[in-house]
């Protein structure tokens, strides 16, 4: 059946779970584009035949046209939904994506991600007068200025705002400014301790 390949792309995306992104399926995208090219060429042929006087070709043209539109829709949906996922990842993982996810992006998607990052950073810097506002912070209403945290893994040295350098070693506990360590908690490096 026509447009079957394009549907496989959609299925592939539908199957993926939160927090993962399948590799950009360049091969299949190319195959879909080839199918579209073939359909288009056949339609061109039939149209010029009709202009030349042959009749009754309209049904076939209509059918192929529908298949073209369908392929287009599937391809666009594939690209669009991937971008949506990548955008969500910016808010969950932070401005640097994990290596294995980055590896699955297409070149254009990497470019898009970088541009999105830049836009977001510029916008956040422009809010207010005091050097901007970090929108990715305080996703939950803050209750205290400082929080107690425990390291879940070795993360190396960390310089706090007041110039102290602390070593984030596995299982060590620290009392840190909430605004400084919230990102590290979101990324699973620190654990927030509540009593």
């Amino acid at each position: 059946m026509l447009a079957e390949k394009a549907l496989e792309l959609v299925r592939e995306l539908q199957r993926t779970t939160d927090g993962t992104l399948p590799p950009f399926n360049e091969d299949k995208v190319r195959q879909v584009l080839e199918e579209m090219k073939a359909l288009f060429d056949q339609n061109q042929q039939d149209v010029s035949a009709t202009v030349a006087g042959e009749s009754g070709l309209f049904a076939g043209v209509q059918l192929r046209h529908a298949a073209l539109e369908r392929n287009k829709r599937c391809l666009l949906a594939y690209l669009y939904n991937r971008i949506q996922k990548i955008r969500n990842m910016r808010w969950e993982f932070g401005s640097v994506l994990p290596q294995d996810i980055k590896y699955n992006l297409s070149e254009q998607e990497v470019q898009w991600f970088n541009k999105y990052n830049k836009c977001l950073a510029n916008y956040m810097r422009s809010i207010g007068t005091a050097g901007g506002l970090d929108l990715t912070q305080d996703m939950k209403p803050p209750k205290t200025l400082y929080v107690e945290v425990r390291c879940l893994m070795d993360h190396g040295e960390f310089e706090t705002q007041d110039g102290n350098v602390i070593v984030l070693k596995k299982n060590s506990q620290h009392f840190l400014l909430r605004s400084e360590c919230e990102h590290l908690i979101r990324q699973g490096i620190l654990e927030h301790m509540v009593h």
Partner: protein
Amino acid sequence: MALEALEEYYDLDDILSSNEKIPCKIEMPIYRLGYLDSSSIYDDLLPGSKMELPYWMARSLCSRKRHMVSVELPKNYRESYREILTADATVVDLHKLGPYYYSFGTHLLKYELPDSPDVAKILVKAFQTRFRKVMDSSQNAYNEDTSKLTEKLDESERLLFKAGQLGLNDFIRWETRQTEKLTTSDMVKNHRKRKRAIMEDTG
């Protein structure tokens, strides 16, 4: 409105649901597309031959203006199935009949078949009867395996179930005062889990 239509255009579920097959009868010859019907040996699709076409294709060939194929109601929406749904919709395995039973059914209404009003009625009725059960089970399954509860649900019902679960979990977290604790983002957690699984596989 324009924006809503755009959302649907990119909606993966809508794309999948519009791929469900409809039994069609070819009404006029369609030249050089005989390969679409694998059981035919001819180069063209001939009038009178019957085949199953996906909804999106059938839709472009059969509408008020065009009549290149005629469309029949798929069997899952015919009288006998409608009777089963009327008898007791809650026990029917809609995922097996669907899995996009409602949304594909809604698509079918656009053909204005003689049975359409009845199909429309039964879709609403079935949804109403089943909704209570979906809501009940999603609001009362806390910390347990839900695959048994959702296996008979249509895809849109599964989304409802998921929304209910999310609400329930949030409520219980609030009730037990867990909301103030900062936690690792779910996406990061899932990503780690997967990575660990892959590493265990290869190592």
